């Protein structure tokens, strides 16, 4: 979090609050329904506060739906599909994105098209396949005459049969055979910079090593998201398990039981028990949902600093803690004169970047104060401090051209277009980038990128220049 504008914070909370109500209400209804007695649940309008029947209903649902073993089945199938999908999808996406062979686009579309015809629509022929998953192979053998040949030679007739009905494989495999995972991994792999692949090649790693050492660790967040989604959607599968499992006692899943709990025509409308069942069946999934682990970059090491001959900086007794126990900066007192060029040296992790970021306003100051030109800036937003900063990794906006990158701060400050252009041209000339203004960062060399970063800092005529290890 960079800015602490109370108004904006309020707006944030407000928006999240509305979102919470939107999202939460149906759950509330289910929960209330599960606590009601039979006459209460039949009442119109339904009441909105809980009653006292929750445990009775849950017990009834649990017992009537035989939910214990069914949940175990659901778990086996959901985990099977999730694991299968992640393994298969990551491998095939790796193949499509990182290898250059002619068939790859064909393969991609072959896989992708499977999303476009839902199982509901092709369930009858799919069932035939599940009854004998080897029938395509059999047909090939028959058509090519191999069956006859083998029979002639050995007297054995080949009849392939692999029945998937009433088995975990039957529930799992057809659900693994879709494209969501592959597509997701492809999207992620596309964002892996070419440099990483090249670096990997330089390090002499094989494709599989690159896959295992670089891609898999990098795709952790994605994997979590995919796993969640696969797990939940498999858990909720209804039509397919219903069809392939006639042996309900051994292979039934929890959601199938939920349907069985829903009162049908002519049945007792005890929605309260249904809701209690829904509540139970929802629980393992709600708790399995990851809270999207935040993984933001926080790299920092040695630092350098400079400022233009306009502002003096005083740093007085500045301390920084990230948690009450970790004191990172133990009290720094520095006076930097206007126009002075200061270099801060120190081992990794000693707080150089943190100090710079506190000057820039990107980190909160735990204790002490920082003044620029005699004015304490502790409470000011970065944009109000008049600093410019060149980041260690340059932080160029990848989707903007060099011109847009340099001119962005001016655009934000609503500098009129002609003046903006003129100033961008001027700095570009100083750093020697005039010929590259219409390129994007990806099309520049490392040195050129560095110069864009510097130019971006210069164009605003800042009073303070901060360079975080830019060389």
């Amino acid at each position, binding site marked *: 979090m960079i800015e602490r504008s109370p108004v904006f914070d309020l707006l944030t909370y407000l928006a999240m609050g509305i*979102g919470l109500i939107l*999202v939460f209400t149906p759950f509330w209804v289910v929960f209330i329904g599960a606590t009601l007695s039979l006459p209460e649940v039949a009442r119109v309008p339904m009441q909105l506060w809980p009653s006292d029947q929750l445990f009775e209903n849950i017990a009834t649902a649990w017992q009537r739906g035989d939910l214990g073993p069914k949940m175990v089945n659901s778990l086996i199938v959901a985990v099977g599909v999730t694991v299968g999908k992640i393994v298969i999808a990551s491998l095939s996406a790796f193949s499509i994105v990182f290898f250059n062979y002619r068939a790859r686009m064909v393969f991609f579309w072959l896989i992708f098209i499977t999303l476009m*015809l839902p199982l509901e629509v092709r369930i009858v022929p799919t069932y035939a396949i599940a009854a004998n998953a080897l029938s395509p192979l059999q047909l090939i053998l028959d058509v090519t005459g191999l069956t006859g040949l083998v029979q002639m030679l050995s007297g054995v007739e080949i009849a392939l049969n692999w029945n998937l009905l009433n088995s975990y494989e039957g529930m799992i495999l057809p659900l693994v*055979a879709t494209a969501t995972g592959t597509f997701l991994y492809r999207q992620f792999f596309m964002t892996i910079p070419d440099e990483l692949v090249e670096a990997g090649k330089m390090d002499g790693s094989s494709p599989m090593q690159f896959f295992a050492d670089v891609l898999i660790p990098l795709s952790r967040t994605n994997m979590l998201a995919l796993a969640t989604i696969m797990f939940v959607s498999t858990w909720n599968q209804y039509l397919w398990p219903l069809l392939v499992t006639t042996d309900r006692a051994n292979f039934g899943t929890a959601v199938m039981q939920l349907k069985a709990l829903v009162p049908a025509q002519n049945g007792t409308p005890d929605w309260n028990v249904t*809701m209690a069942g829904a509540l139970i069946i929802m629980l393992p999934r709600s708790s399995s949902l990851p809270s999207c682990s935040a993984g933001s970059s926080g790299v920092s090491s040695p630092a350098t600093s400079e400022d233009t001959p306009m502002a003096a900086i005083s740093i007085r007794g500045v301390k920084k803690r990230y948690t009450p126990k970790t004191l990172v900066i133990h009290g720094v007192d520095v006076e930097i004169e206007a126009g002075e060029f200061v270099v801060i040296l120190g081992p990794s992790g000693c707080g150089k970047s943190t100090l710079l970021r506190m000057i820039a306003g990107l980190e909160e100051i735990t204790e002490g104060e920082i003044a620029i030109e005699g004015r304490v800036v502790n409470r000011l937003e970065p944009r109000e401090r008049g600093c410019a900063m060149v980041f260690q990794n340059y932080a160029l*906006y990848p989707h903007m051209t060099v011109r847009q990158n340099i001119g962005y701060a001016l655009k934000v400050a609503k500098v009129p277009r002609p003046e903006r252009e003129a100033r961008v041209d001027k700095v570009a000339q100083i750093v020697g980038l005039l010929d590259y203004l219409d390129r994007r960062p990806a099309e520049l060399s490392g040195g050129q990128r560095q110069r864009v970063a510097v130019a971006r800092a210069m164009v605003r005529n800042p009073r303070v220049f901060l360079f975080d290890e830019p060389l």
Partner: protein
Amino acid sequence: MERRAYYRNKVLPWVLIAPQLLLILVFFYWPTTQALYWAFTLEQPWGGGNTWVGFDNFASIFTDTRYWATALRSAFYAVCATAISMTVALTLALFVDRALKGTRLFQSVFVWPYAIAAPAAGVAFRFMFSPQAGFIGAVNQVWPGIWDPSTVGWQALAMVIVCHAWLGIGYNFVFFLAGLQMIPRSIVEAGAMDGARPFRRMLDLQLPLLAPTTFFLLIMNLISSFTDSFGLIDTLTEGGPVGATEVMVYKIYFDGFKGLDYSGAAAQSIVLMLLVISLTFIQFKWVERRIHYS
């Protein structure tokens, strides 16, 4: 978007992709081809045989004005549901990404809609949108008879779309948030140094950098609103009133499996598939090239 760096290997890519190809060939293409064959025949449901009729099934679809109405309705449904769901999820994700105190609580709740099972969701929605009771029904106490999705077509359609969008919020939210958190912090910080306020940074930096995620979600949402709307419609409206919520996939399911018209349903499946494929293809051709993956 072309990559520069590739691995070169003759065998490995084929080995890697083989399991997936094998699975989809057996469990998707093989059965689908059989179903598609039905589109050119009149197939007896119990498998007693069929007669080849060429494109007759397609001709009768395309001359049926009600089929066109269904197709248009599906398109409208897809666009609205996708737009609503993605906008809400994105807004929430952008706010959650600010990581204010207590955000975690909100964050975990926002994912929930994805976890709710369709029957339970259907029941909850039926209650919430019921004209006699529920929240929306309250307007009937102020203006009697103004809200009744059971008889007024557009209201039923609106209801189904809102529910579809709601169910998608969790999914979209997870991806948007993951996408936002993958944007290097320094880029947002550079924006702050450049003087952009939070809202401005969202528009100018985070949104464009989210493009790959947005593209992914756009495709997934569009496809899913064409193909996954079946369960919801079946619980909420069963296509009614008077077909006002009948979208293509529901019609396929109804004609094919309730009406036992396998051939008509297969022909409709082909049309649906071609439509979704071409929509997706267009997006890949025209939208993806504007995306910067790195």
